[in-house]
């Protein structure tokens, strides 16, 4: 340890990592691993519990619930499909979240590019406006939105859920921050020299360079839209819901059959968990990157 602190100030890149690991970052002992494992088990437990209850029948709570799954899951799953329009709701959620994600990423990248790399009158003031609106709780505007949707006859349609989420101030802010550093000015100038219009410059130079940030924004937007509950609950019909509204419908009532309801939550969670297994590494990186930049 003492030998390492006297290491020469010029660090060779190969050794830097080793140094850091052995001196400043403590070697974790079994206590650290133990606490982390306990935390992650606690994190995973509700998911497992949901599946566990769903694998028994309605009488599961009369005795102690065994910790090994039973064989009733698929029977419950088919009851879920009979009780609520599950597949339709899942499809609706995919359509809504997919449309919202494409729109937010596209418009945020366009505006982010303009704010980061183009000079135009009023750009500073307009960017300040974007930052100021970051904290505005647009969710609280549901009442006029509801009145407007009723006026236009959009109530009950997916368009009514999609429209209020087409852009976010956060998206513009996020993309601008990334584009400032990630797209070299020389590259834009070169494209302009070659006669690219600004739109083609955006499409062929900027977009390929910002793909990681755009993907992150896409993942976060998709998840947020997927989880949205208050507004879809207000504006959609129970017969043609998103998955969140459908799940709520499954639970409401005075007698709740939890083997049925938790089969529904399990079925709605499994696709998200699969996506997380594939994209989790990027999501972690995005959160940590956003923390330092924001």
């Amino acid at each position, binding site marked *: 340890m003492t030998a390492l*602190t006297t290491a020469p100030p010029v660090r060779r890149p190969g050794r830097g990592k080793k140094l*850091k*690991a052995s*001196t400043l*970052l403590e*070697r*974790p002992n079994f206590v*650290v*691993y133990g606490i*982390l494992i306990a935390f992650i088990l*606690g*994190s995973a437990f509700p*998911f497992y519990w949901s599946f566990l209850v769903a694998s028994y029948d309605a009488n599961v709570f009369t005795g*102690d619930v065994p910790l090994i799954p039973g064989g009733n899951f698929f029977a419950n799953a088919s009851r879920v499909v009979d009780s609520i329009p599950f597949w339709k709701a899942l499809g609706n959620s995919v359509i809504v979240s997919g449309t919202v994600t494409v729109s937010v990423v596209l*418009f945020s990248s*366009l*505006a982010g590019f303009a704010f980061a790399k*183009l*000079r*135009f*009158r009023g750009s500073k003031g307009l960017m300040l406006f974007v930052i100021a609106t970051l*904290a*505005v*709780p*647009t*969710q*609280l*505007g549901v*009442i*006029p939105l509801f*009145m*407007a949707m009723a006026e236009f006859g959009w109530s009950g349609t997916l368009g009514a859920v999609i429209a*209020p*989420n*087409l*852009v976010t*101030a956060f998206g513009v802010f996020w993309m601008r921050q990334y584009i400032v550093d990630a797209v070299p*000015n020389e590259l*834009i*100038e070169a494209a302009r020299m070659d006669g690219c*219009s*600004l739109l083609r410059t955006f499409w062929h130079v900027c977009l390929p360079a910002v793909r990681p940030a755009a993907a992150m924004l896409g993942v976060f937007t998709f998840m947020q839209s*997927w989880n949205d509950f*208050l507004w879809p609950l207000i504006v959609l019909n129970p017969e043609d819901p998103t998955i969140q509204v459908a*799940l*709520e419908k499954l*639970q409401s*009532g*005075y007698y709740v059959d939890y083997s049925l309801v*938790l089969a529904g*939550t399990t079925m*709605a*969670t499994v696709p*998200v*968990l699969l*996506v*997380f297994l594939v994209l989790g590494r990027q999501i972690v990186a995005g*959160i*940590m990157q956003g923390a*330092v930049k924001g």
Partner: protein
Amino acid sequence: MTADLTEVPSGRGVEPRPPVRRDTQEHPALPWRDRLTRLDVKFTPYLFIAPFFVLFAVIGLFPLLYTGYVSLFDWELGGDEHPFVGLENYTALLADSQFWNAMFNTISIFVLSSVPQMITAVLLAALLNTALRARTAWRMGVLLPYVASLVALAIIFSNLFGKQYGLINSFLDTVGLSPVDWQGNWFASHVAIATMVNWRWTGYNALIVLAAMQAIPREVHEAALVDGAGAVRRFFSITLPLLRPTIIFVVITSTIGGLQIFTEPKLFDPAGGSGGGFSHQYQTVVLYLYQAGFQDFDLGYASAMAWILFLVVLVIAAANFFLTRRIASTGEAE
């Protein structure tokens, strides 16, 4: 940086008759391509930002402002006319004990969730900041709850906190404690709802704190190490003070979300509905807003509620802005 691209004069205001420029602009011999480029450079930036600003004005700003307008009327859904009542909705709201109760519940749930959550997140981040094997796997592990949908999560926890057959009460029973009426008791219901919030967000916040920890310059730690400071000492004397801006930032941004909590209390008890329990013991402001607006169809009253909450959030956001700026500037001064 990109001034040479744009050719737009950077000075403020229109220059009085720039003869040369005008000349070239109106010169018939100027190739149409160049003119097109000039137009492109001048107007395309506005076209790029227009979709955001136009849409945001229509779907974000206008509804919020119109909420303020609706709040001045006695506006019942389906009513033929809605008379102007001035600030009557506001005076009624400020005299409405159910509203104050909802405000109190919201804040109570927020405090119960943010304080333990922040402490756990910092400790968790410290554990994650060690030289773990398979770092990314651990980070993904703590983030797991974040992917659960709020509705699924609220339903699962409503089952876990069930009064008769809930797992938590049978656990309490096993260790010899008496069961808790998680739905009926106001404090217990706040704890249960805060637990859902904590379960979902602690890992997420731990990753943000971890990122801030890793941004602390190595040299500071090295210097302390040379001076003989151990890991615990360095955590309290270096890491924690330097994390302060991040912690304040996280707390205040989560205030904005926490004030609007809806899904968890809405689904906490299937029998409780939008009232937030039989004596509104866990009804939050947005839940009350939902009940007033979309079950009692009193849109004017609900709008007044939304507008008050909106102002509260704005004040907190403004406080956030000045506080973080101040922290940043004192950080530079040191």
